[in-house]
Structure formats: structure tokens, C-alpha cells
């Protein structure tokens, strides 16, 4: 398809992707190529091409005129002259099928054309300039969307008489909102992108910005939408003709179906051909739309993979010095000899790929955490630190596999050696009760439909088996403990009524509500304002010391590590690079990668400053 150019540029092979070969095995191709490789896409295109050719060549291929009737030969069975037989008026079924294809495809094109001609510019203007035009068109859209297509077409028929073109223009107008919405949404999301701003600053006119940047975004969705709309248009046009409200002088599939239905007792095969032609054409369009969508989504996946690969190469100097295997600096844990609260040994996590390979995101990671201890896991995005945390919690996505190693909690395996999946039966007894979780993004981790109080009370009732009333008292005390000034008010509030910092305090309260032994905190301060970050870290430290719990703190921020942790493990590309006490590692990092990370973060800056994260880029 026409997207090939951009997508090819994006999906070009990334030289030197350091992943252990898995990303390299992905077949990279353009949308068009992927479409041709998809068997369903090929079949769809072949069907549509064949039907279009038959329609175009109808005057040549059809042995008879569309309305030529041989009264002496009605409802005849197929023979050498009428290869599909004749209908009740002695007209040739094959010829009528061909002319019907012509009209059907033309009417679908007209409908989609009208819909695009109205919906696309309206969507562009509404999305790009917003304001009054958008308000008015949204209102018009809501009216158009509330009318059933067939009823509108009946009205048009009553007003203008039987005309395929009139009804398809009307249906095009009626269905134009689908293009309008699609374009408006796409434009809105692109409008504020940096490159569009840059184009605007550099003095390009609105028109050329739209032409250059926005059309390339909406083109593929419009092709998908057009396939769907053409199918719907064919269905509704045929329905109208089936009702006998079409143009009686034209041979169409709808008329043929209606003709066949009238003679269903005499010759049911008359029904078969138009129904088959309709299903084949609409099915071809549906499949084509699906195939293009799949091709685009595969492209997206490749893009993401490429981004992940790039970010892991962000520190090339350091990357080269990563030891091939574990390396001596990685803490060696002798299985079974010590009794730690949490012991992760040689853990590997991977995702099976479409081509049968497994993409490893965590590889040979070992560490342990004791009661009353905070272990920091540091690394860039994509280093596998969150995946490690989710393996401990047993909350990996469904398609993730444990490819190696084990996880022990309090002496018992939650992932035994050789198991492919986390044992949910074992972990569901621990989760909430002994192991709990503080997420990264406070707002999206509370269910917007329930009050904060409800979301604190329910786990306590379920896990601790206490009464609602008691759970309520405990929840109010917890809210006070995490520094919320008016616990009663927050208890009754919905998530959208509190600030991000307060929501994170609520989530921390939830994490400690059932007195866990181990808390997994996944970037607990990343989404918060700088001042709130410090408060939340203080709160975490205070709670951890008071309750004497073990904490695994996942972060990309060495400032947080220095502030809070006892020990730290540094991860890169799914592997553990270095592990030790915070003091040792900060003063005396043995690995080049750790040094690079530290050098980029601690240059005379106070820990936890927002600059820390933005300072990461210059390293690359």
C-alpha cells in the first residue's frame, strides 16, 4: 500500500541491536509486503480484483443484455447458452450477475466517495482548528448517527423516486461521520506533536502542514474504513432493491435475490448466486480491512521493538563492557543454604514470538531480600526491572513465560525450578497478605468507579477476614498513618476527586493494609511532582522501619536509591550487572555501566531533582 515509504523507513533493520538475537529474527517489512504475506489479505485482494475485472468487462463477457428476456425459456436449468440458467422472465442469470456487479461496485464507490468528500475535510477542519466548527459538526454528527440507514433511504426513495445514485449519495452523507471522527481524532493527536509545531514555527502554511503530516497519519485508517463502508453500502443498497424499491430497469444483486425469493419454491438456485456474490464481495472487503489493520499493527509492534532496542543501546560505551555471562560481580546465591525473605535465583523471563523464538526480557537474575531491608533495583527503561518485580508478584502478562530459575518466598517456592509459569495457586495465598505492591502511576491504579474507602476495605475483608466495620476503622487509621489530613473525607472520595500525590498515599496505605512482609514498589515516585516525591519517600522509609518489612524498590533513579536503599542491584538489558551495598556501589562501582549511570546522575545535583531523569540522554 501507499504507506510503504514511511513504514519502510521506520522498520529498517537496526544495526547492532544488542539483544541476544531475538529481535534480529523478526522479519521486517513494509505494510504492503506484510499484506502480501498475509494469506487472508492475498485472498481478499484476489477476490476483489476478480470481481472488479468481471464488473469492468461485463459488457464484453456477458452473453446477453441485462434485461434481454427469452419468454420461451423461463426458470431454465444451466445449459451451454445460459451457463447459470435463467430467471422467471427468461433472463440470463450470469449476464445479470455481471451487470449487477458493475452497479454494485459503482454504488459502493460513490457512497464511499461522498462520505470521504464530506467527512475528511470536515474532520480536518474540526481537528485542526477546533472551536465553533467542531462544536457544530459534532452536533450534526450526533444527529446523523442517530438515524437508521434504511429508514433514511426509504425517506429518500419516497422523496426522489427510485435511483441507485440518489440513495448512495444520501447514504454517503449519512455515513460520513465515521470518516469525520476518524480524521478529527487523528488530527487532534498529531496537531500538538512536536514535529507539527516545528513545521508551524518554520513558517509552513496550515495547508501544507495538513498535506504533509496529517494525511500520512490518516491514510491507512481511511483505507480500512473505506473497506468497511463499501461493504455496508452494498448490503444496504441490496436491501433496498430486495424490497422492490430500487430502479426496476437495472439488474442488481438485490433485485435478483428478490426475484429468486419469489420463485423459491420453483428454483431455489436463483437465490444462491446473488447471495453468494454479495457475501463474496462484502467478505473480501471485510478481510481486506482486517488484513490491512493486522499489517499496521505488526508494524507498530516492530516500531516498539525497535524503540526498546534503541534504548538499550543508549549507553554504547558501557554496553560493550557488559560481561557475557553473569560475571563475578553478580552476587552468587547458594541455593537452600540461607533463609531469606525473598530469594530470586537465576530468573529468566521471556515472551514467545510469532516466529517461534522466545524474546528474553529478564536473563539470569539472582538476588535476595531480608526482612527490614530495602533492595533497590536500578536500570533504564527496558532493562527488565519491572518484569522482575512482576515475576515476584506473579502478575506477569498472560503470554509471559518463566524460561529459567526460581523464586522463593519465605523458604517456599513461588516459581519452582523448571516451571514455565508462576504458580498462581501458591501466590494467590500470599498476594495482598504477605507480598504487596505499590504501583507507579497512582491515578490509573485505582478503579474510578469505586470510592477510595471501598478499595481499601475490600482487600482487608477478603484477606484478613475481618468485618467491614473493623476494616473501615483500620482504613481510616491507615489513611491517617500515610499522612492524609482528613481521612474521613478521603475515605468517601472517588479517585478523580483526589490529587496524584494523595492517590499514591492511598495506594501505599493499601499496600501495607494487610501487614505484608514484603512490599514491591515499582517506581513509586516517578509519576509525582518533585516536592511530593520527597514526602512519599520519607513515608516509605518511616513505614518500612516501623513495620520491619522487606522492600524491593524498582527505580531508574540513583537519587532514590541513595536516599532509601540498603542494597542495590543494577540491571541492564535484562541482566544483573552489579549488586552490593549502596555505600559500596555509590563510592566504588566496579562496572563501567554503573559508573556511567552514576556519572550522569550525581554531578553536583541534589538527589531526586527532576533533572535527574532528563539528564539521562547526554550519556547516549
Amino acid at each position, binding site marked *: 500500500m501507499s504507506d510503504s515509504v514511511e513504514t519502510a523507513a521506520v522498520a529498517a533493520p537496526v544495526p547492532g541491536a544488542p539483544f541476544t538475537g531475538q529481535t534480529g529474527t523478526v522479519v521486517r517489512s513494509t505494510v504492503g509486503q506484510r499484506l502480501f504475506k498475509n494469506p487472508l489479505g492475498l485472498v481478499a485482494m484476489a477476490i476483489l480484483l476478480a470481481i472488479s475485472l468481471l464488473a469492468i468487462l461485463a459488457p464484453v463477457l456477458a452473453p446477453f443484455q441485462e434485461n434481454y428476456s427469452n419468454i420461451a425459456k423461463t426458470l431454465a436449468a444451466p445449459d451451454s447458452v445460459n451457463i447459470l440458467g435463467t430467471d422467471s422472465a427468461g433472463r440470463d442469470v450470469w449476464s445479470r450477475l455481471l451487470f449487477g456487479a458493475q452497479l454494485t461496485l459503482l454504488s459502493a464507490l460513490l457512497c464511499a466517495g461522498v462520505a470521504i468528500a464530506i467527512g475528511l475535510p470536515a474532520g480536518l477542519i474540526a481537528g485542526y482548528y477546533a472551536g465553533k466548527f467542531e462544536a457544530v459538526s459534532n452536533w450534526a454528527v450526533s444527529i446523523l448517527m442517530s438515524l437508521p440507514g434504511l429508514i433514511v433511504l426509504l425517506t429518500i426513495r419516497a422523496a426522489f423516486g427510485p435511483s441507485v445514485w440518489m440513495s448512495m449519495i444520501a447514504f454517503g452523507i449519512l455515513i460520513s461521520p465515521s470518516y469525520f471522527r476518524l480524521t478529527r481524532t487523528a488530527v487532534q493527536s498529531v496537531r500538538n506533536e512536536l514535529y507539527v509545531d516545528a513545521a508551524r514555527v518554520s513558517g509552513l502554511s496550515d495547508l501544507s502542514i495538513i498535506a504533509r503530516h496529517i494525511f500520512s497519519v490518516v491514510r491507512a485508517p481511511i483505507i480500512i474504513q473505506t473497506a468497511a463502508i463499501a461493504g455496508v453500502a452494498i448490503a444496504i443498497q441490496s436491501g433496498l432493491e430486495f424490497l422492490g424499491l430500487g430502479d426496476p430497469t437495472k439488474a442488481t444483486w438485490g433485485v435478483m435475490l428478490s426475484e429468486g425469493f419469489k420463485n423459491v419454491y420453483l428454483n431455489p438456485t436463483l437465490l444462491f448466486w446473488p447471495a453468494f456474490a454479495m457475501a463474496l464481495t462484502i467478505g473480501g472487503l471485510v478481510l481486506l480491512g482486517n488484513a490491512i489493520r493486522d499489517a499496521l499493527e505488526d508494524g507498530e509492534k516492530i516500531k516498539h521493538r525497535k524503540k526498546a532496542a534503541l534504548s538499550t543501546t543508549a549507553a554504547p560505551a558501557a554496553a560493550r563492557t557488559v560481561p557475557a555471562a553473569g560475571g563475578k560481580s553478580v552476587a552468587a546465591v547458594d541455593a537452600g543454604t540461607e533463609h531469606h525473605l525473598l530469594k530470586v535465583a537465576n530468573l529468566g523471563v521471556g515472551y514467545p514470538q510469532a516466529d517461534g523464538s522466545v524474546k528474553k526480557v529478564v536473563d539470569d537474575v539472582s538476588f535476595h531480600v531480608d526482612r527490614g531491608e530495602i533492595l533497590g533495583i536500578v536500570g533504564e527503561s527496558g532493562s527488565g526491572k519491572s518484569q522482575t518485580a512482576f515475576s515476584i508478584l506473579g502478575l506477569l502478562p498472560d503470554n509471559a513465560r518463566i524460561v529459567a530459575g526460581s523464586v522463593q518466598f519465605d523458604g517456599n517456592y513461588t516459581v519452582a525450578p523448571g516451571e514455565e509459569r508462576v504458580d498462581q495457586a501458591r501466590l494467590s495465598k500470599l498476594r495482598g497478605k504477605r507480598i504487596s505492591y505499590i504501583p507507579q502511576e497512582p491515578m490509573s491504579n485505582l478503579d474510578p468507579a469505586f470510592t477510595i474507602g471501598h478499595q481499601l476495605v475490600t482487600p482487608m475483608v477478603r484477606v484478613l477476614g475481618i468485618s467491614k466495620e473493623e476494616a473501615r476503622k483500620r482504613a481510616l487509621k491507615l489513611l491517617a498513618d500515610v499522612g492524609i489530613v482528613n481521612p474521613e473525607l478521603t475515605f468517601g472520595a472517588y479517585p478523580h476527586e483526589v490529587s496524584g500525590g494523595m492517590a499514591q498515599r492511598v495506594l501505599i496505605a*493499601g499496600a501495607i493494609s494487610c501487614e505484608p512482609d514484603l512490599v514491591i514498589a515499582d517506581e513509586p515516585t516517578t509519576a509525582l511532582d518533585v516536592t511530593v516525591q520527597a514526602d512519599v519517600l520519607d513515608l516509605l522509609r518511616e513505614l518500612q522501619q516501623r513495620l520491619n518489612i522487606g522492600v524491593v524498590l524498582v527505580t531508574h533513579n540513583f537519587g532514590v536509591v541513595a536516599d532509601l536503599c540498603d542494597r542495590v542491584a543494577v540491571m541492564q538489558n535484562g541482566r544483573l550487572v552489579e549488586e552490593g551495598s549502596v555505600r559500596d556501589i555509590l563510592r566504588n562501582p566496579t562496572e563501567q555501566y554503573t559508573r556511567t549511570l552514576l556519572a550522569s546522575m550525581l554531578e553536583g545535583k541534589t538527589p531526586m531533582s527532576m533533572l535527574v531523569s532528563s539528564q539521562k540522554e547526554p550519556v547516549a
Partner: protein
Amino acid sequence: MIRFIAKRLGSGLVVLFVVSALTFFLLYISSGSIARNILGDQATAEQVAMKEHELGLDQPLVLRYFAWLADALSGNLGASWFTSEPVANSLATRIPVTMTMVFAAMILIAFCAALIGVIAAVRRGWVDRVVQVGAIIGDSIPGFVIGVILVTVLAIQLGLFPATSTISPESGPDAWLYSMSLPVIALLVNGVTGGAQQIRSAVIKQLERDYVRTLRSRGIGEREILFKHVLRSAAPAGLTVLSLQLIGMLGGVVIIEQIFALPGMGPLAVAATGQSDLPVVMGVVMYTVVVVIVVNLLVDIINGWLNPKVRVS
């Protein structure tokens, strides 16, 4: 919440007004000599003029619209130009037939599509693949073609069902239900295949939300997460899917009734359209728009009730 409902109700009335005006002007501006159509070619010019006066067609269009509107507000939708039957009466006898089928089909669609869609989203595996393939097949075959196939195969060739459904409720609930089953099946096939797939996507989208993972980490069971949290958040999307299907079905049922020779809105609408019997066409459009507005209002109210941001304010 009451303000929210009042606002939606108000905008529904505005839509009703706009659509009625648009339809009225569209119908009366574009159709040629109405009186000539009714009286036939033999009528003299005087007879045509008299008929035009009788129907009020010699009045300005705007005046005629407001006259129609005033009548409509008092429940009088005019009379058919061909049968002289009051439009309101025709609607009253036919709406129950059509709405019975539409509601029966919608309830079954809601139940089946939700059940299959949720199972496909939660279990994935083969159910999911069946739903995906089913959606493609359902999208490929228009509902009325399914109706035609059902009649041909099940009623005519196998004789399992009556081919037409003119049996009235008075002839016994069994026979009536039996005769209604084919048209209802014809109406619901596309709805179930399409609805199941869209509900599946809506549920998967919710299952992937962050708070679901956090609920799991708190020790809440899968069943409770699904029924209390996920389905509740997926409900607005599911309801929207179903309401759009209901709107589409108001058109689809016209053809289905024609196929099964049911005395509902379909034959009335088709006959009126073919003859350009404009008062009846206006009546059919108004009935449709009212149903659509009521359905949208109900969906808005349920969604508002599910969404605390609306409920609280």
C-alpha cells in the same frame, strides 16, 4: 444526576424537532406533483387543483410544517393519502408487532453477545478464535440475506418452521412463539457475531488496565475482579455497542418483516415509500426517531449512573 437527565432529554427533543423539520422539507420540496400522483393521469387540472387544496398543498411549505407540528403534538399525524387511515392508528397497530421482535432479538443479543464476548476475552483460546472468525462471517452476510437463507433452508426445504409468521398471539402462545422464532433469529445473527467481538475488545481493554493488576496484588480473587470491576467498567462500551445495534435493527427489521410477511412497520413503510404516501412516511420517520432518542437516553442514564463523575455532580 437530574440535571444531567434533563439536559439529555432536552437535546433529544431538539434532535426530534430538527429531524422532523428536515424530513418534512426534504419530502415535500422534492416530490413532484403529489395530487397528480394520487389521482392518476386521467384527472383534470381542476381535479388536481382541488385535491391540492384539500391536502393543503397550496399553502406555503413553512406554514404546512408548523400545522403538521401542531397536529403531531396533539397526537394527530395526519392520514394516509391512499387509504385515508389515520397514520397514528396504523402506527399503533403495527408498532407492537415490530417492537416485540426488536426487543426479543435485542435481549437475546445482549445476553449471548455479552456471554460469548466475556468468555472470549477472559479465556482466549479457541472461543476467542471462533468469535473472531464469526465476526468476519457475520459482517460478510447482510442480515436480510441470512433471513432469506433461513426461510429457504429451515422453513421451505426442511419444513421445520412456518415460512410466514402472520399467526397472531390469539392463536395460542406456542404457535405464536414458534412462528416468531425464525424472524427473531434472522434479526439477531449479525448482532451476536458483531456484538460478541466488540464486547470482547471492550473487556480485554479493561482487563489490561493498571488497576486490575493492583487489585490482583491486593489479594482480590479473579471472579470478583471480573464481575465487580472489569464488567462494570466495560459496561458503557458494551451498552453503546448494543444501542447502535438496536438503531440499525430498526432498519433491518423492515426487510425481515417483508420476508416473513409480518404485519409490522416494515410493510407499512415499504408500501408508503413506493407510493410516496408522505404522511405515512413522516409517521414512520417520527416513530423511528422517538425510539432512537428513548434508547439513547436510557443508555446515557445507565452510563451516567455507572460513572461516578456524573453521578456525584
